[in-house]
Each structure stands twice: as C-alpha cells, then as structure tokens.
C-alpha cells in the first residue's frame, strides 16, 4: 500500500500535476492551467453576471427579457454541451478557435448565468424598509443605489457567490474531455501509466482540488466579516 503511494508521489509526477509540461515542452498544464481557466472564468462571469443580474432586477421589459432568456437558456444546458458548442460552432463559420478559449468562453457564459441569478436575488434581498429609511434621510436615488442597495446586496450575495466560484473552479475539470492538459488530464495520464494504483492517483487529484477550493472558500470567508468587507469596498 505504501509502495503505491511512493510510486504516485514522485517529484516528477508532482511537477506534472502542478505545472504540466511547462519546463520540458513549454506548455502550461496541470494545476496551473486549471487555475488559469478557473480564475479567468470567475472574473469574466462576475462581470457578465453583474450586468445581466442588474438587467434582470430591472422593471423595464427591454432589459429584463433578454437577460431572462440568457439565464434560462444557459442554466438548462449541461456545461459539457456548451463546451462542445463553443468548440465546434465557430469553425462552421470559418472562425478559428482554440481548446483553451472554448472552455473558457463556455465556462464563463455558463457561470455568468448563475451569477446573474445571485445578483438579482441580492438586489431583491435589500429590504424596502431600508430604502424608505434612506429616502427619509434625504439621499438621492443614485446615492441610495450606490451606498445602500448595492453594498447590502453584495454582502448578502457573498456566500452564494463563494459557492458558485467553487463550482466554477470544479467545472474546469471538463477541459480534459476536449483534450486540454489540465490537472484532471495529467492525473488520468499518470493513472494510465501506473495502472495498478488508481486509488492513490485519483485521491491525490481529488486532494489537490480540495485544497485549492477550500483555500478559495477561506479567502472569500474573510470578506464575510462586515468590517473587513467595509474596509475594502466601502470607505465612508
């Protein structure tokens, strides 16, 4: 049993798991690639989600309708199918695409739809009584939006957002299904080469994902403390 672990946890294997073939072939892979896709998708989907979420919370049909359409259609399709669309549709129109880009685009749009729902819910969660209090104090609508609604909404959203970010980090693992050298693919290769120790190999990959995602959650938890949150985002 210990033998198996020793065969899996070699420096060479760890190097491949962490950065792929970066040093011997100059191709980034492994955990580094996973993080690249994950963090870029998180950033992109937050921007998309914020815009679409505000549109969803609006009463104007022209804003609300397209936003709803986007959210509903992207939430009801498996991410894997979106990845295939992003990879195989552009060539039909003669557009060149890469595996990396298609995974990134699919993951960003997919996560964006979920984040839009979170943003909308966050905005709706700010109590009406609170708005009245702000109006009574003589704040203008814009001031109310900026200093009362959005900070509260964002704060209420944080736990849900953290959950979504972790899901999106986990979802990067689909990249291996179209042949990217991400953490899962490298792990699968090592498993195939060693043959007799799949338990150890896959537990190792699962452990790496676990540590990364727990780390991400811990960082986001810091923001859930109102004081550190205000210090970062709300200077009054």
């Amino acid at each position, binding site marked *: 049993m210990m033998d198996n672990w020793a065969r899996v946890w070699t420096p060479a294997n760890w190097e491949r798991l962490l950065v792929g073939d970066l040093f011997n072939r100059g191709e980034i892979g492994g955990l580094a690639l996973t993080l690249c896709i994950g963090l870029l998708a998180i950033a992109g989907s937050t921007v998309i989600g914020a815009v679409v979420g505000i549109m969803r919370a609006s009463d104007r049909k022209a804003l609300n309708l397209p936003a709803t359409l986007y959210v509903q*259609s992207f*939430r*009801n*399709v*498996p*991410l*894997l*199918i979106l990845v*295939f*669309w992003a990879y*195989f*549709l552009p060539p*039909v*129109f003669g557009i060149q695409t890469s595996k990396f880009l298609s995974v990134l685009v699919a993951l960003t749009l997919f996560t964006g739809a*979920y984040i839009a*729902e*979170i*943003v*909308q*819910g*966050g905005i709706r*969660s700010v109590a009406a009584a609170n708005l009245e209090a702000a109006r009574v104090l003589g704040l203008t609508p814009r001031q109310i939006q900026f200093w009362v609604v959005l900070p509260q909404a964002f704060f*209420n*959203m944080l*736990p*849900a957002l*953290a*959950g*979504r970010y*972790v899901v999106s980090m*986990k*979802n*990067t*693992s*689909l990249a*291996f*299904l179209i042949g990217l050298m991400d953490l*899962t693919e490298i*792990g*699968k290769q090592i*498993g195939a080469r060693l043959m007799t120790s*799949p*338990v150890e*190999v*896959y*537990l190792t*990959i*699962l452990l790496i*994902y*676990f540590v990364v*995602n*727990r780390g991400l*959650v811990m960082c986001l938890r810091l923001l859930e403390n109102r004081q550190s949150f205000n210090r970062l985002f709300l200077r009054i």
Partner: protein
Amino acid sequence: MNTDFSILWGDPGTLILSGLVVTVKLALCAFALAIIIGVVMGTLRWIGWRAVEPFCWVYIEFCRNTPPVVQLLFWYFSASFVLPMPVFMFLRDFGYEFGAAVIALAFYHGAFYAEVVRAGLNAVPKGQFEAARALGLGFLQSLRRVAFPQAIRVLVPPLVNETTALIKNTSLAMAIGVAEMTFQYRAIDNFMFRGIEALTVITVLYVILCLIAAWLGRLMNGYLSKHLHARNATAIADRQIVGGEIIR
C-alpha cells in the same frame, strides 16, 4: 453553413434516442439513491450528533470541493479496489460503467441534497420541534409529522436546482464510456460528421429534461400548498437562499 436535420431520421436518430433512454435511466437511478443519502445525511447533520458530525462534515466538504467528473473517474478506475467484492461483482453484471456512474453521481449529489435537507429543517422554527417533543412524540414521529411537512415547502426550489444539476451532470458519464446522449453525439460527430445537427438536438433534449424536472417541482409545490396548507411556512432568510443557491 449548411445543416440538414433530415439526416437525423435514421441511424443517428436511433443513436440519440437510445442515448436519451440511458440518460433518463441514469438520472432516475442516481436521483433515487442521492435523495436517500441526502435525507439521511441532512437529518444527521441537523441533529448535530457529535459522534457522526465529523464524518458527515468530511463527506459533504469533500463533495463540495472536488469536481464530479474526477469523482466519476475515481469510482470507475478504483471501484474494484475500494468496493467490497460482492458489490463490485453485482455492478459488473449490471453494466459496469453505468453502475459506476450511478454511484458517483449519487455520492456527489447526495451531499448537496443533504445540505438542502438540512437548510430546510433549519428553516422550521426551533419551537415547532420542541413542541412536538414536549407532547411526547418520538424523534421520528416529530420529524415525519411536524418538521418534514414544514421543511419541504422551503426545500422544493433548491431541490429542483440540485436535480437539474444532477440531470446536467449525467453528461459527464461519457468520460467513462456510458452510452448516454452526449456520448452518442460524440459518436455521430466522429463517424458521420453530422455534429452540429446532433448537438442541436441533444441540447434541446437536455433543456426539455431540465424543464420537466422544474415542472415536476412546481407541481409538487402546488400539491404541497394545497394539501399541507402551510400558508405561513417560514421563508428561509434572504441570506440563506439567494438566487436559489444553497449556502455553505
């Protein structure tokens, strides 16, 4: 671009249809098993029983923080090492890939159902359960007659969310060679080069499956509000559910 959906009448259509059957079967089996895991685990966590708490925590945190597709690979490649021999033999006779996919999806989504169940139970005011017990009702009686009927109303929307996630995750089973819809689409693309048409059809089919799950959820909600009359069932605080997400 020229698309020709008529090619789907014939072999590709049959393949997709057989894939759809496998997808539905996989989703149903995994759902049934995951719900059982979820109710048991969620209730155990809600009790806050010290002896089992660490065990539940590890299970749920593990599932929340690791990708389902890697768990799928783990079960597929290591099942013969970690499962008891009789279970493994049963699975092999059952169709090994399919069995591994059911176990992996049920194990993964069971953790999420557990959190949904726990959040639902937590949303029932504490006094309700105390009142039931003060009347002498046993634990299971209080749970069944008082806590669950009230919890289930707040539970349905996140339950539907998790179930659509489960349906969507069945597509991952192609990674271990289960012949479900996505797998069949890849086959059609590889051998007949009719990728876009097939992709369109299975996309629509997935949307329909997800909408059916949502519709069933709404039916259930309607049924519950009609037959349980829990009109003032307490809403989970805004922070607990935002955008239908369960919160860690």
